[in-house]
């Protein structure tokens, strides 16, 4: 069964007809040439496909495109085109921090890491607690333990975690 949907991808409205079985990840990569979200495990275990859906980080491999008709999708590539990216000379501050701190090796997980970090920083700014937050009612202080816990849904097989934490620590300032 086919369905026609509209997605706003990185600021641009895109209309397309998809088989209902198409995930948001496959729609982005195979149909809309938005290839910064990566297919790692395709089962919601690695985080490489993370995008911001209506401003929140989600896994695009477990989202059906048809179920998100009308949604606003921001990929890692699109972050550069946001106000923060434009002000930063074409790199979003979180992406810039990953470059400055060598927060990657092969780079395959990086777009997902960057989108996840951007979403995570918004969650922390809204004082959402995490599993390691000692006092559920206190304002969130993003120390390294908090960053690690909040980013645990993004795996890096190169093991660049130390520098990823350093990059996010700086971006959080």
């Amino acid at each position, binding site marked *: 069964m086919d369905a026609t949907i509209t997605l706003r991808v990185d600021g641009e409205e895109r209309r397309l007809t998809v088989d209902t079985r198409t995930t948001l990840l496959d729609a982005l990569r195979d149909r809309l040439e938005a290839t910064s979200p990566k297919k790692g495990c395709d089962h*919601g275990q690695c*985080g490489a496909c993370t995008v911001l859906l209506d401003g929140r980080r989600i896994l695009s491999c477990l989202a*059906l495109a048809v179920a998100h008709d009308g949604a606003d999708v921001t990929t890692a590539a699109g972050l550069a085109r946001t106000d923060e990216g434009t002000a930063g000379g074409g790199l979003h501050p979180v992406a810039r921090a990953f470059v400055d701190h060598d927060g990657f090796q092969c780079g395959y997980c990086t777009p997902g890491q960057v989108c*996840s970090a951007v979403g995570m920083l918004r969650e922390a700014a809204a004082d959402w607690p*995490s599993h390691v937050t000692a006092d*559920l*009612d206190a304002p969130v202080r993003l120390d390294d333990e908090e960053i690690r816990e909040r980013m645990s849904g993004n795996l890096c097989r190169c093991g660049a975690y130390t520098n990823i934490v350093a990059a996010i620590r700086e971006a959080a300032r």
Partner: protein
Amino acid sequence: MRPFDYTRPDGPSAAVALVAADRGAAYLAGGTNLVDHMKLGVASPTRLVDVRGVLGDRVEELPDGRIRVGAAVPNSDLAAHPAVRRRYPVLSAALLAGASGQLRNAATTGGNLFQRTRCPYFQDTTTPCNKREPGTGCPALEGHGRDNAVLGASDSCVATHPSDMAVALAALGAEARVLGRGGERVVPIPGLHRLPGDEPDRDTVLDHGDLVTAIDLPHLPTAARSAYRKVRDRASYAFALVSVAAALDVVDGTVADVRIAFGGLAHVPWRAHRAEEALLGGPATEEAFRDAARAELADARTGRDNAFKVPLAVNTLASTLRGLAAGEAR
């Protein structure tokens, strides 16, 4: 993946009518478990009825002191809700102990209850599984058995329920509001999930087409002193080997009220009535906590790989109650 029709119903009743009339239909909410199962071939619905748009997405404080959680409220919003953090820290903590930030943003309150087991044989369509294909057998009985249930299992299924949230709800004695073809009814938690018996393909007592529209949290002052403790193979982003949800009220060294549920031990979030009865009115001491935990686990049946769960459950419960008695948050 098998082709399927996708429908957005006009309202909850229309959704129920669509699914109840079609054995091949399934509800779709966050999709974090169902879409994966469709990829794996574990589930192959011919119609998806998307209920996110027709279910409540708000957390509402009711005049009688209860809290009503719309079934479409994302796990992340429920965990972060100020009233939930203050009045039911065990529920916030359980939600935050589960999955990852991305998954919690997509997964819903209703959908979380209907997660299916992570038993490796259930998720592997090349192996038999009584839960996935009734009558084919259970390789977990003699195969990889580290995750197997130790309470309430049957000869046909030893799977455990994977939800952290449901363990907290079982401890709190929450209620699910269920819409079916015959109208609305209330199903208590525990009571929603069922033990496997000889029908392990049925995870809950609900009929095909029944739709959870909201979860009600009881007015329960004891829950303000509650905690969730999860033991797993990794520090984060893993399912529980054993988990404990507990609320404890101690007055002058005596247990005035206590609520306990275990995760990782059974096919259901396991409310520990026996341990609660052993503790109520008695001293809030380490010895009493351990005796109560051992009483709850007295009927445990273990296999080659999962005997560790019994002492782990005793220690985890004792440690959680000790923390609560000492006034530690969470």
